[in-house]
């Protein structure tokens, strides 16, 4: 007797269809699972065996062979339990085989026959729709997550018995009721720019960064509010589109960090500690799982104390930054995760942190060493380099200078102008412009070009900075609603790039 059940394996960011084939034949009783499963899949035999018996079904005393096809794909995790159990039930004619053709099955089994939550349900549901399977049976706790995908009938089940009843022609159980939204997601709790005192220059830089999608480096002594400012970047970014929200939710679900019932609506902010390993940052491990760069997809990756991160970790970020996706190679297999994030980093201006003030005791050699640590692959990608000196005491006592809502309105307008101009190129922000596209779209007047040339000749701007400043000036013009980049846009952009912090003064 042969039964076949459809399920899905999580392969990086994607879900791949897996066919669970169960074959029963006479012989000494045995239960084997083949098809490149990991430890969790091998242990699945014991769970399936106990779950069947404890749910009141018979466990066939035959020679049982389970094959997870295709055989070349590595199968990870306990999500195949439920499909295997259904296959055994169908092969032993305890449930009708024909009913299984309409359903994909995904879930972990407990020994008592209860069905438990699994990672990556959203990716599985998207696979179900892609492969035109009518319905999906998932753990009840994950039913809302699966139901985020349209056009798929989702059956949330809490026990194996319930699955059997459903397949014997029972009703599809209703989705669990939405629990009241947890308090911490309430909009009032989101950090707002109105909390920031002083730092008018840095707030302006954050606005420009948000408007053009530019990467931002904040340089200032400890305790001035670099982290506070970075945490407020998501609040001034445009809301996630539905497609973006699905991608974000899917990654968090695959990483096992999603327990909600609705789409994640807020842009993620990830702030890994500087001791993080390269694979923690970009993803990896024996069984590849998404790293911080992917968890920050469509959101913000904040690297506090950039110079403290290991060289190899920063080096690993280069490809994700460039391509917006990371490829992790493990045993001849490559898995891909998306990594389209906006990078914000912070650093001390010098080893002691007080550069420029009389308190600084760093020598020129210390400064040079500090700059050397900073320079490298990531700095090439920073459009805005902004100092954050200690604010004056009066500024701390003063009222808010602006609010997130006000800034967001300006950002949205600027984004709209960019989208209009870039329509058809597949890009949406100035930060993504290639040098060629930048030349095409920048529309800078003669005075603006002359200014840039002057700054370059004076040595206050590097060759690489030249491009970056022009890009930022384009965004400033978009914020102003100007079709062309004018001289004062370039002047402001020059002010927002403190190359001293990283390049060092020339000659002296």
């Amino acid at each position, binding site marked *: 007797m042969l039964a076949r059940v459809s399920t899905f394996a999580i392969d990086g960011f994607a879900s791949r269809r897996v066919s669970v084939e169960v074959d029963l034949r006479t012989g000494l009783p045995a239960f084997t699972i083949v098809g490149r499963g990991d430890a969790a899949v091998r242990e699945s035999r014991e769970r399936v065996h106990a779950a069947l018996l404890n749910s009141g079904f018979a466990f066939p005393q035959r020679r049982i062979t389970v094959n997870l096809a295709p055989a070349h794909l590595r199968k990870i995790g306990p999500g195949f339990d439920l499909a295997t159990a259904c296959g055994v039930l169908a092969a032993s004619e305890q449930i009708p085989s024909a009913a299984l053709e309409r359903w994909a099955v995904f879930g972990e089994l407990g020994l008592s026959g209860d069905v438990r939550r699994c990672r990556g349900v959203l990716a599985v549901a998207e696979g179900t729709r892609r492969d035109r399977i009518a319905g999906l049976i998932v753990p009840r706790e994950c039913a809302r997550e699966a139901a985020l995908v349209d056009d798929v009938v989702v059956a949330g089940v809490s026990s194996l018995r319930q699955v059997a009843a459903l397949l014997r022609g029972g009703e599809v159980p209703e989705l669990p009721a939405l629990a009241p939204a947890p308090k911490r997601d309430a909009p009032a709790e989101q950090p707002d720019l109105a909390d920031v005192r*002083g*730092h*008018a*220059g*840095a*707030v*302006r830089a954050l*606005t420009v960064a948000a408007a053009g999608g530019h990467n931002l480096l904040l*340089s*200032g*002594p400890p305790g001035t509010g670099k982290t506070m400012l970075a945490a407020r970047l998501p609040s001034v970014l445009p809301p996630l589109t539905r497609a973006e929200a699905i991608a974000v939710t899917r990654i968090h679900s695959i990483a096992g960090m999603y327990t909600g019932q609705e789409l994640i609506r807020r842009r993620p902010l990830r702030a890994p500690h500087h001791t993080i390993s390269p694979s923690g940052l970009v993803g990896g491990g024996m069984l590849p799982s998404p790293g911080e760069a992917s968890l920050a997809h469509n959101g913000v990756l904040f690297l506090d104390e950039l110079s403290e991160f290991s060289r190899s970790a920063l080096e690993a970020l280069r490809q994700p930054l460039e391509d917006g996706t990371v490829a992790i190679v493990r045993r001849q297999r490559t898995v891909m995760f998306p990594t389209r994030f906006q990078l914000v980093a912070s650093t001390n*201006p*010098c080893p002691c942190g*007080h*550069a*420029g*003030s*009389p308190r*600084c*005791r760093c*020598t*020129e*050699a210390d*400064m*040079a060493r500090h700059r050397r640590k900073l320079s490298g692959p990531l700095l090439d990608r920073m459009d805005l380099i*902004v*100092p*954050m*000196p200690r*604010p*004056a005491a009066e*500024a701390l006592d*003063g009222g808010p*200078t*602006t609010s997130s809502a006000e*800034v967001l309105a300006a950002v949205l307008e600027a984004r709209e102008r960019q989208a209009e101009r870039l329509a058809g190129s597949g890009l949406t922000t100035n930060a993504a412009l290639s040098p060629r596209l930048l030349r095409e779209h920048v529309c800078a007047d003669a005075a603006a070009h002359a*200014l840039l040339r*002057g*700054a370059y000749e*004076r040595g*206050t701007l590097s060759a690489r900075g030249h491009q970056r400043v022009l890009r930022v000036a384009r965004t400033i013009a978009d914020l102003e609603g100007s079709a062309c980049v004018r001289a*004062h846009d370039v*002047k*402001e952009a*020059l*002010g*927002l790039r*403190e190359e*001293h*912090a990283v390049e060092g003064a*020339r*000659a*002296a």
Partner: protein
Amino acid sequence: MSACDGCLRRSALIAALAAHIERARRNHRHIAELLALGEEDLLDALGGGRRGDLERAREGFDPVQARERISAAGLHAVCRHDGAYPPRLTQAADAAAVLHVAGDPGRLAALAIEDAPAVAVVGARRAGHDGLEVARGLGRGLAAAGVTVVSGMALGIDSAAHAGALEVGGPTLAVLASGADVPYPPSKRGLYREIVRTQAAISEMPPGFRPFRWCFPARNRTIAGLAMLTIVVEATERSGSLITAELAQDLGRAVGAVPGPVSAPRAAGSNALLRDGALVIRHAQDALDEALGIGVATALTSHRAQDLERPLRALLARVEDGCDTVSDLAATPAEAQSALAGLSELELLGFLRRVPGGRYVRCS
């Protein structure tokens, strides 16, 4: 431009004795006294057990080979018997026998003319940004008036003075403690290349020589000897620049100092010089008046604040008053926008310079 055999031999002997001199320095021997000794006396004073070996090496000295090494390193050599040797240096008994020149030998030869103007600008390696800016301004103003800016290419003030002179195309002379072909400190390699390209770096030590500690005060005596006026910009109480000032005084040359805040330890040494009667140097004009005579040359002032448009002038005034960061100048992002643009414009016009920590300082 050449060096005689005897002077080359003495130069080689000093280099061979370098480690011995270093030991003598640690035993509190006076370097200037040692360097003023004749060759025989030097060997007596320092040779000790190895006197015989050193004696033989001295007798086996081959001037042809020495000249080959010098030209192979791309250097020129001038000895005190040559017409291109600066006459001001010969005043001192312990003056270098040979000067090796990297770069344009004409820069040194220019000082061979009687009363050729040269001013030394020296100071702390750990200098504040204001001090650096003053040194740069002095370098710029002096060089633009045709005065050779002499310094030691050390970190901080020295380098800033050279850089200022380079901004207006020189003349400037870097006196090194290492061989003239060895950039020291190594982190100033870029500045060294710039200097050697159009100006000159000189040293009394033979090519390839790596400096001992005694070489730095020895180098200072050459700086003081070359200059008619020595200006200390920033110096702590135990700074090596004070040695240069003292050496200049011993030679009967003028010594000046730039006043610093009385509460700042980094200006304590230079302020003490002022109390002891050094000339007050506020800017390049003060230095020019002292070096060339009052009113002979006017320091170039390319940037005149009066010519600026009103908003820029107001912005500049606020920066001069101490509101020197964007967040000090602007309360709202909109104000920050115009402040950023204005500051950049002032920077491009040469009124301001950005320093680490987000501050803007006035260029002198």
